[in-house]
């Protein structure tokens, strides 16, 4: 009986350890906001709205994007980072900016980290990243949040 307890405890501890590691892999250490929080902020009658930059693929943007968001190019490419820097150049450093992608599951996105780092290096202090766990389709479009299409 005691050995069974010991075995189950070990299994449980291993499970906790795995969960902790998975949580770390997924969080990216980026300041995030959820789709619900963003929609609330965008629909609030008062207060400044954040600037929305899509830093994923153009193919995705053309199919569906958040109304008012600007396509700047994939954050994993030189062109994307150059566009982002140019766009941000004239903005005040305390401008509220939300970056989003949604090309693939959160922990596999190649675009968000470089885009976030670029803005932080430029001295921007209010940059957040939209947390889309699976992809833009599942976590934004299918939830019925506001949508725009085209260039």
């Amino acid at each position, binding site marked *: 009986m005691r050995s069974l307890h010991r075995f189950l405890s070990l299994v449980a501890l291993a499970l906790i350890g795995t969960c902790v590691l998975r949580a770390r892999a997924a969080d990216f250490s980026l300041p995030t906001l959820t789709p619900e929080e963003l929609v609330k902020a965008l629909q609030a009658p008062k207060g400044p709205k954040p600037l929305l930059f899509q830093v994923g693929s153009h193919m995705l943007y053309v199919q569906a994007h958040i109304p008012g968001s600007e396509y700047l190019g994939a954050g994993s490419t030189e062109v994307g980072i150059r566009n982002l820097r140019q766009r941000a150049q004239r903005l005040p450093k305390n401008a509220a900016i939300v970056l989003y992608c*949604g090309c693939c599951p959160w922990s596999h996105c190649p675009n968000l980290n470089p885009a976030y780092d670029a803005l932080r290096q430029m001295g921007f202090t209010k940059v957040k990243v939209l947390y889309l766990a699976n992809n833009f389709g599942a976590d934004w*479009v299918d939830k019925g949040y506001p949508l725009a299409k085209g260039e």
Partner: protein
Amino acid sequence: MKKSLFLLVVVAALLAWLALRRPSAPRAGGVGELRPAPDFSLTDLAGRKLRLSDYRGQVVLLDFWASWCDPCKREIPHFVEMQNRYGPQGLQVVGISMDDDEKLAREFQEQFKMNYPVAMGSAQLANQYGGILGLPITYLIDRQGRIAAWHVGATEAEVFEAEIRKLLASTPVP
């Protein structure tokens, strides 16, 4: 005391597991829809005509991918292998790159030695398939040209293989 500590650890583990389970994906895919796969006519990266309906009578694995997509990189070597293994029995893998830049798709095709036709996708084609709003997305199309299953996100090769074998076992179109 020891017993309550043990219970605490077990409960904590269960809660952690519940909290961090893979998030549910409404676009996680499905099986058995059997709706006609939208036809398309493209030119593949080798300059050949690629029309989906030309593969009627074969089982088609239609993969939407991109060179920057990590889960795609994990799946594609399996598709290359499946084309080799099941091609003689009637499987045809077709790749649609959702890259913005064709050069990247070409480099990837070469690097991964993709042994099946690959064409560049478009927003229009994506819309025909209900929107390709996340990658990878893979459709399995039966010998009658109907979507028999689809998967969103990285999927185990064994899952594809089981579905392919089942579809290949169905009667070929005369």
